[in-house]
C-alpha cells in the first residue's frame, strides 16, 4: 500500500510534520498485553476496590438500584453502541427513535413539555439550566436553595464564573432540613431559584411553594433531582410549577461505575424549546409519508450557531440515555412505582430503627424519599470505617466530606436492593460502632 501511494516508508507519511517535532523514540507506555494478561491485570485492580462488594447504604447522588438484565443486552448490540451521533437519519432511525422515546419519558416523569436528548450528567445539566435561565430572563442573579448536592453547586460555580451570574445561597431550616423562606432573597434581578428535591439531606422540598415565590418575582424555578426514581412517586416538578427540571438519570439502569458515565436529563416548558441546550430529536416524514425521526432545531447548536449557541455540548450521553430508556420501558409504569414504593418503605423502616438507637438521632423532620441524615455519638468517618472493616457494610456518607462542621453526621440511603436483613445488620452494626 505504501508503494501504491508513492511512498517508501511509513515515516514518509509524516513528512508534513517538521522533523524536529517528530518523536524519535518509542513512547514510554507499556508493551502490548494479550487479552489474558490484560484481564488478569484489571481483575487484580478490581479486587483492590473492596467496597464494590459490600452491603451499601451509600447514595448522595449515585444510587444502587436493580438493573434488569435486558438493559445491558440491548445497549451491547453492535447497532447501538458502535454507531455515531445520528446525523444521517436514513441509517440512524434506531438511535433516533430511541431518543424520541427517551425525550417522551423524561417529559412524562418531570411533568414538562420538552426534553432534550441528554446532558453529560445531573451536575452539568444543572449548570446549563442556570445559564439558560439567564438567557431566558436576561437577569443575572441566581439563588441556590438550601441543600443542593455540594458537587453540583461546585460545578455550577465553575460554569457561571465568567457568565456574569451572581450566585446567592438560601439557608435551610435546621429542624426540617428543607429550604427556609426565600421571599427576601428574590427580587426583580433574580433569574432563577434553584432547588434540589429530594434535597442533599434526603428531605422532600415544598417545590410548589418555591415555584410560587419564584414566579411572583418573575424568576424561573429550576428543580434538580439527583435520585430520579423519586419522580415515580413524588409530584412531578412540572406539576409543582418548575420551569426547568434537570436530573441525574443514573438511577435508571446505569451502573455506579465510580461516577460515570451517567446521563443528565433536561426538560423545560414548550415556550423555551428554542433556548434549550443540547440535541433534540423530532418527528419528520419522508416523501412517501413514512414517519421517521431527525435531529432538529439545530440552529440552537454550536455547529451552526458557534459562539452564540445555547451550549457548547456536542457529544452527549447517547448510550446511557438508551440504557435509561430500556430501563424505564422494562420496569414500566408499575415497576417504577414499585421501586419507588419500596425505597420509601424501607427507608422509613431504617430511619425508625436507627432513631431509637442510643446515641443516634435523625435530625431532620421533613418527609423523605430514600435518604436521611443520621447524627451519631462520635466521628462519623471513624464510625463508618469501623462498620466497613468489622461488619463489611458501607453505612453511608460522612457529611464531613463536604461539611466540616458536621463531623458526627452521615447520610444513609436505602433502596429496593437493601433487604430487611441488611437494614437490621446496619442497625446492629451502628449499635456496635457507636459503643466503640
Amino acid at each position: 500500500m505504501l508503494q501504491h501511494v508513492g511512498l517508501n516508508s511509513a515515516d514518509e507519511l509524516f513528512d508534513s510534520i517538521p522533523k524536529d517535532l517528530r518523536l524519535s523514540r518509542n513512547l514510554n507506555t507499556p508493551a502490548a498485553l494479550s487479552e489474558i494478561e490484560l484481564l488478569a491485570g484489571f481483575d487484580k485492580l478490581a479486587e483492590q476496590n473492596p467496597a464494590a462488594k459490600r452491603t451499601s447504604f451509600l447514595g448522595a447522588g449515585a444510587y444502587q438500584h436493580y438493573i434488569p438484565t435486558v438493559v445491558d443486552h440491548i445497549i451491547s448490540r453492535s447497532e447501538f453502541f458502535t454507531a455515531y451521533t445520528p446525523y444521517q437519519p436514513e441509517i440512524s432511525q434506531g438511535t433516533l427513535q430511541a431518543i424520541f422515546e427517551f425525550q417522551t419519558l423524561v417529559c412524562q416523569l418531570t411533568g414538562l413539555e420538552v426534553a432534550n436528548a441528554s446532558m453529560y450528567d445531573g451536575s452539568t445539566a444543572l449548570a446549563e439550566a442556570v445559564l439558560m435561565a439567564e438567557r431566558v430572563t436576561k437577569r443575572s442573579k441566581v439563588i441556590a436553595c438550601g441543600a443542593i448536592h455540594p458537587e453540583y453547586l461546585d460545578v455550577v460555580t465553575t460554569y457561571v464564573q465568567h457568565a456574569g451570574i451572581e450566585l446567592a445561597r438560601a439557608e435551610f431550616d435546621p429542624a426540617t432540613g428543607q429550604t427556609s423562606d426565600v421571599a427576601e432573597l428574590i427580587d426583580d434581578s433574580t433569574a432563577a431559584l434553584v432547588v434540589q428535591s429530594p434535597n442533599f439531606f434526603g428531605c422532600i422540598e415544598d417545590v410548589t411553594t418555591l415555584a410560587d415565590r419564584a414566579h411572583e418575582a418573575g424568576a424561573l424555578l429550576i428543580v434538580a433531582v439527583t435520585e430520579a426514581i423519586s419522580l415515580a412517586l413524588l409530584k412531578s416538578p412540572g406539576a409543582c410549577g418548575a420551569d426547568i427540571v434537570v436530573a441525574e438519570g443514573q438511577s435508571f439502569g446505569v451502573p455506579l461505575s465510580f461516577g460515570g458515565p451517567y446521563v443528565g436529563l433536561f426538560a423545560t416548558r414548550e415556550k423555551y424549546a428554542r433556548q434549550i441546550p443540547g440535541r433534540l430529536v423530532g418527528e419528520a416524514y419522508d416523501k412517501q409519508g413514512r414517519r421517521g425521526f431527525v435531529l432538529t432545531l439545530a440552529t440552537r447548536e454550536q455547529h451552526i450557531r458557534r459562539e452564540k449557541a445555547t451550549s457548547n455540548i456536542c457529544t452527549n450521553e447517547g448510550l446511557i440515555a438508551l440504557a435509561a430508556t430500556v430501563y424505564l420501558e422494562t420496569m414500566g409504569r408499575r415497576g417504577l412505582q414499585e421501586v419507588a414504593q419500596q425505597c420509601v418503605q424501607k427507608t422509613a423502616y431504617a430511619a425508625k430503627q436507627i432513631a431509637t438507637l442510643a446515641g443516634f438521632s435523625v435530625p431532620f423532620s421533613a418527609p423523605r424519599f430514600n435518604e436521611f441524615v443520621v447524627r451519631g455519638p462520635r466521628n462519623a468517618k471513624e464510625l463508618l470505617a469501623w462498620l466497613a472493616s468489622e461488619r463489611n457494610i458501607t453505612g453511608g456518607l460522612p457529611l464531613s466530606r463536604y461539611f466540616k462542621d458536621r463531623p458526627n453526621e452521615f447520610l444513609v440511603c436505602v433502596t429496593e436492593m437493601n433487604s430487611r436483613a441488611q437494614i437490621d445488620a446496619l442497625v446492629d452494626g451502628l449499635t456496635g460502632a457507636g459503643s466503640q
Partner: protein
Amino acid sequence: MKSEITKVTSHINPNEALIFERSQPGRIGYRLPPLDVDEQAIETLVPKQFLRDDDLEGVPEVSEVDVIRHFVRISTWNYSIDQGMYPLGSCTMKYNSRLNEKVARIPGFAGLHPLTDAEDAQGALEVIYELQQHLAEITGLPGISLQPAAGAHGEMTGVMIIRAFIDARDGEAGSAKRRTMLIPDSAHGTNPASAHLSGFSVKTIRSTPEGLTDLDHLRELCSHGEVAGLMLTNPNTLGLFEKNIQEICRIVHDAGGLVYMDGANMNALVGVARPGDMGVDVIHLNLHKTFSTPHGGGGPGCGPCCCTKELEPFLPVPRIIKTEGGSAEIQTRNSKLETRNSVFKLDFDQPQSIGRVKAFFGNYGMMLRALAYIQTHGFDGLREATEAAVLNARYIAHGLTSVYDKPYNNPPMHEVVFTDKRQTRKGVHTLDIAKRLIDYGFHPMTIYFPLIVPGAMLIEPTESVGRQELDQFIEAMCSIAREAVDDPELVLNAPHTTRIGRLDEAAAARKPVLRWKARATASAAQESR
C-alpha cells in the same frame, strides 16, 4: 378486536411502532422481591400534596419480550462500525474492542460507588492515575484532568484554565483587557462555543489557500494586546498538519497569549509527534475518538484536558495523586492492600483550580476502556495504528483524486477533504453523494464541514479498515461519480435501500414534535386474556 382486516403492513420489522403505541394496560416486564418490611400507608410517610396524582399515566406497560423485540427491531435500522466502514471525518470511527467492554463491566469497577472512601477504591484510582500518566506521555503535557465528559467539555475546561492563568498572571485589570480568543475559520463549532462559555469573544483567523493558518493574519490579530489565546486543531479539520505550529505558538506566546489545541485529530499523531513538544499549552483529547471508546450513538465520551506544568495548578479538582510509601492505615483496613507501597489520594487542595467541571470523577467507564486500549496496543501498536490511519487516508486520497475535486494539494494526514465541485454541473451535490453511499453499504463521510470548504466531504477511514474495504469504498465513490453523470436522478433520490427516504427536516423544525402524546381520541386499547 375489530373483525375487519386492518391495513396489513408489508413486514413487521420496519414498521415497529413507538413503545407508547405498543403499551397495553396491565402488561409488565419486571419482578421485584416482595417488600420485606411492614408497609405503611404512603400518606403517613409522604404528605399527599407531595405525591404524584397522575398514576404515571402514559408511561408504557409492556412485557420483557416486547422490550426486546422493540429494541432489536429498531436497532436494525442503524448503521454501525460493526457492519462496515464509517468514514466520518473528524469523528475517528475506529473499531471498539469487545475486550474493553468486558473490562468496563468487571463488577469491582462497575459496582463501585464514586463516593467510596479512597482507601477502599485504590484499584479504581490507580486506573485513573495510570491513564493520566500514559496520556501525559502521549501528549507531552504533564498535567491531566480526566473530569471532562466529552471534547467540548474538555475545551471549556482548557479555555477556563487559560483564563484563570491570565487572571493570575495579569491580575484582574490586566486580564480584563485580554478577552479575545482567536479561532481559525476551519474550526469545529464547539471551539467558539467553549470560548464563549469562558467569557471570551471570538476572532476568526483566515486559512491560506493551502489550507493552513494564515500567519500574517495571526500576527495582525495578535498585535493589539487583547489576545488571551488561540484555539487550533492540529492536524486541522482539513486533515493537514499545521507545519508552522512552532511559529504559531511563538507568535501567540509573544503576544502574551496561550495556545489551546483541539486534540480531536490526535489519531494522526499518537506515537509520532506530541503537542507538548510543539509549544502547545493545553489540549483536550477525545477518548471516544483516538482511544476507541465507543460512540454509543452520540456518547458517552471522555475529554481529558492535558496541560503544561505551568498550567497544572489550574486544573479541576480533585486531582488524583500518588503518594509513595505504604500507609499504615490502609494496611489495617484491608488485608488485600497490605503490599501496596503507593497510595492514591484525592487532592482537593488546589487554591488556583478553576473548580469542578463535573460531579465525581468524570466518565470513569470510558477511562477503563481507554486504558485497556493503550495496554493492548502497546507503544508500538499505538504508533502502528497512527501509521495505518494516515496510510488509509492517503490511499483514499490517491484513489479519488481523479474523480472528485480535492481542494488542497498537500498530502493529508488521517483524513482527506474532497468537494462536489465536479458533480454539481449535473445538479448532484455533496448531500446526494453521501446519501447514495448508503446504498452501497457505507456510512457517508462528514459533509459540509469544515465550513470553509463549499460542498466539503471529509473522509476519515481510520486504521480499522483493510485494503479490501478501502477498495470497495473507492469503487463505490467512483461509481457514484459515474451515476452523477449518467443517471443523476438515481443519486438525487438516494438512498433507495433504507427503511425511510430523506426526511423533511425543514418541516420538522418548523413545527417541532419532540415527544409522543396520547391521541386525545384514542380509546384505551384493551387486551383481555
